[in-house]
């Protein structure tokens, strides 16, 4: 008798494997090629020859690239702290309270997620020009326009993640803390915030990576003295795709991967407490 296999039956493993291979190649082939070329001796991006770290050396000795990298990290850090705090507050506000105009506020905070980045970029460009936001301050204050722009578009993501987490919060946890004698602040500090923690970590990570690799909005808000890493790479690529650019990009990938792994590890370490 012929065995009947359903389309999604696990025993159709060949199709499963095919999907896995195809998606993995689709996602990672360009990145792997980039990384491979970053170690290639040849200056031309035609074929990989030998193994060298000289492009990394060159990239690290490029002062402009280093400054752009420092700018990006600084902006990302400021953005992570402020956007996480703002996003968490917005999430708690939306979760905990009822107030007039709440649906409007809810929609307004979610809008930056939906609005095309190019529109937001142009709007911020016009806004900063109109109010005459100073860009000639001393480093790192000259990055304030970019940081503000990044916070504006990334904190709604944090709010969304934290709020999703809070939706699963068992109100009886709060009541039982109060029943045991805790004040409102103690309830927030001892029960609500620990519950929010995985959401805060995930939100902070997202805010960091959103900021670190943002191009469109940064392009409209950065000046000649405030170049970020993605913008710098773009301007280098406009001359030619050099192995130096490959090396710099590879470093960015590694940093992102390490940070992601770190955040995931921290989240998993908290897992025992993550269930309600």
């Amino acid at each position, binding site marked *: 008798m012929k065995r009947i296999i359903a389309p999604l039956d696990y025993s159709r493993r060949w199709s499963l494997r095919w999907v896995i291979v195809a998606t993995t190649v689709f996602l990672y082939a360009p990145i792997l090629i980039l990384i491979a070329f970053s170690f290639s001796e040849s200056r031309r991006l035609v074929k990989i020859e030998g193994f060298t770290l000289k492009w990394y050396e060159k990239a690290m000795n490029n002062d402009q690239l280093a400054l752009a990298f420092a700018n990006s990290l600084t902006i990302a850090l400021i953005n992570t702290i402020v956007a996480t705090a703002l996003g968490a507050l917005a999430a708690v506000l939306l979760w905990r309270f009822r107030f007039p105009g709440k649906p409007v506020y809810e929609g307004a905070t979610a809008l930056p997620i939906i609005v095309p980045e190019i529109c937001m970029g142009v709007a911020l460009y016009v806004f900063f020009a109109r109010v005459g936001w100073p860009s000639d301050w001393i480093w790192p204050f000259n990055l304030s326009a970019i940081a503000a722009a990044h916070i504006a578009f990334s904190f709604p993501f944090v709010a969304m993640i934290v709020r999703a987490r809070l939706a699963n919060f*068992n109100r*009886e*946890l709060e*009541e*039982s*803390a*109060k*029943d*045991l*004698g*805790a*004040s409102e602040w*103690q309830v927030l500090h*001892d*029960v609500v915030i*620990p*519950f929010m*923690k995985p959401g805060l970590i995930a939100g902070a990570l997202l805010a960091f990576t959103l900021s670190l690799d943002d191009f469109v909005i940064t392009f409209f808000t950065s000046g000649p003295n405030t170049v970020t890493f993605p913008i710098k790479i773009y301007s280098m690529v406009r001359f030619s795709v050099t192995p130096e650019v490959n090396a710099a990009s590879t470093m960015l990938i590694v940093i992102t991967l390490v940070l992601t792994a770190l955040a995931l590890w921290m989240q998993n370490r*908290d897992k*025992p*407490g*993550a*269930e*309600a």
Partner: protein
Amino acid sequence: MSDDAIVRIEGVTKTFAGNVTVVDRVDLRVGRGEFFALLGPSGCGKTTLLRMIAGFELPTDGRIVIDGEDMSTTPPNQRPINMVFQSYAVFPHMTVAKNVAYGLKVEGVAEAEIGPRVEEVLNLVKLKGYGARLPNQLSGGQRQRVALARALVKRPKVLLLDEPLSALDAKLREAMQLELVRLQHAVGITFIIVTHDQKEALSMADRIAVMESGKIRQLDTPERLYEYPSNRFVADFIGKMNLFEGKVVTREGARLLVDVTGLGRISVPHEDDIAVSIGVAVRPEKISLYRARPADSAITLQGIVTNLAYLGESLQIFLETESGNQLIISQTNVSRSGSGAPRKGENLWCSWQAADTLLLQD
């Protein structure tokens, strides 16, 4: 006023937005050291009443007096009362010991005193050695013990329990019923439990308040509630009941003569005054079955077995009488063979004592 009531509820009403009255002028006294149950179907207001005692809801009207002090509007964190929640609400990010210590910590109890008190109460709920575990490493029953320990360590004047056993499986639930009674005796604290499970209330509580639509329909001991329900609702809600419609004809000393639809005229002992139109009721296990007409002068009926339900320890027989009345009769399965048990379609006689008959108004 000398008073041994630890909780006094005086004319308490709770009306929610939209004029929904959930608790309606309830008066209640719970004695010191009592195991008290609030029993009723869902939506009867029992949980709202419990939450008002805890302080999570404020009464629209009336007073809640705890140990002689009016606490109607006192916030929950300042009441000498603790609660075990339906979901247990054990803090997931704290170990068992930290959970239990939490109430003492926020109260400002000295660190040196907290440790021994936590140990003591963990012993009491049989969780010795579990202090370092996290809640997700515990079973449902153990988590409930943590919730109990966390409340008991505060040495409250009253412990409130909101449907504490509803999330446990049947076997564990029975064990926990005994366990809760043991605990209550050990600590001597007043327990007020909310439940919709009549078996739970009957087996644990000293006194039970049966609630319906925000009102207490009867407040009594388990035996009295079962054997002498004061109205149709209580009679029907607790246990099973065969109900007939009847009219009082006349009084003969301590007995009443009642005309019952499908039964004829019967004489029932009943001291108190009662309305003319009444319900006449009898519990299924008070009825005996016979193959021939019984000789004694008890209330007797004839009918056909329409259905049988085997419940393990007992057999339920559904009998339809000539007048069309449906009766449920319960027989204990005393012997293993089951020989002589009624069969479907069989024509049988049933009878019960007049003294086991209940007369119910409203």
